[in-house]
């Protein structure tokens, strides 16, 4: 029988994969992908908890996370395009302009 713990562990693993992507990637577009992975990992956890505790709140949170992810993508991609127009690159190493 699959329990809540199984889902949470899968969620944790996927989240760690996303985290690794965030750390590893230097390309902004790829960074966006990695964040999507992390958001989805969290959604799995919410849905699972919602199911096992018979409570709709978890699903509600998942909905709002999806909404936020969608708007993030919309704005983020706009910014990416502007950046690309300006610098001709999406690599973070090229974009470093605020060295302290």
């Amino acid at each position: 029988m699959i329990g809540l713990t199984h889902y949470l562990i899968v969620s944790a693993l996927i989240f760690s994969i996303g985290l690794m992507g965030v750390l590893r990637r230097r390309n902004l577009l790829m960074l966006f992908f990695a964040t999507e992975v992390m958001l989805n990992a969290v959604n799995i956890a919410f849905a699972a908890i919602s199911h096992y505790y018979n409570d709709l709140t978890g699903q509600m949170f998942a909905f709002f996370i999806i909404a936020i992810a969608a708007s993030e993508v919309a704005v983020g991609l706009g910014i990416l395009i502007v950046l690309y127009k300006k610098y001709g690159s999406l690599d973070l190493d090229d974009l470093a302009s605020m060295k302290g």
Partner: protein
Amino acid sequence: MYEIIAFYLFSALTIGLFLITVMSKNVLYAMTSLAAGMVLISGFFFILGADFLGVVQLIVYVGAVMALYSFAMMFFDATRDIKEKNTNSALIFLLGGLSAVVLVLIFAAPIHSDAIQALYPMHEGVGNAQDVGIVLFTKYLVPFEVAAVMLLVAMIAGIILAGKKMDQSLTEDMAADDEIMTQKDAK
């Protein structure tokens, strides 16, 4: 029984696909695997009985978001491999691994659920979509409206940010474009 098979299958596939997303050098591969992973995640939702959430996941993520990404990719050069210098991959794997281990440890710990009570319980014999709708439009009405406004704002922002100088090519030589533009203006 089916549930167990489905769970392990989906888990293995999702993790694999997302690993490709994270590791791949090709944007196209990464994006494709991401889309596939998301479809499989909606599968998790269906197993968990969150039908409506699964459908939303399919429509919003796989439909809208991935479509956005693929459109955005057309602005950039997607066929080229991305060159990234990874300076300290040891640290990255250490951090990722450590977080995974700790999170798993935390989640594997037994849960004392006596104190947890359902705030908005699901009802027997009522469809998931119906249940979600009732809660969303009564208890979560204000956040829902705010989310709607936020999406609108994001849409406008996206259009404005991306829409400037839409008639210019991003990939070709900028100088040539400028020349064309000045000729146009002269006319």
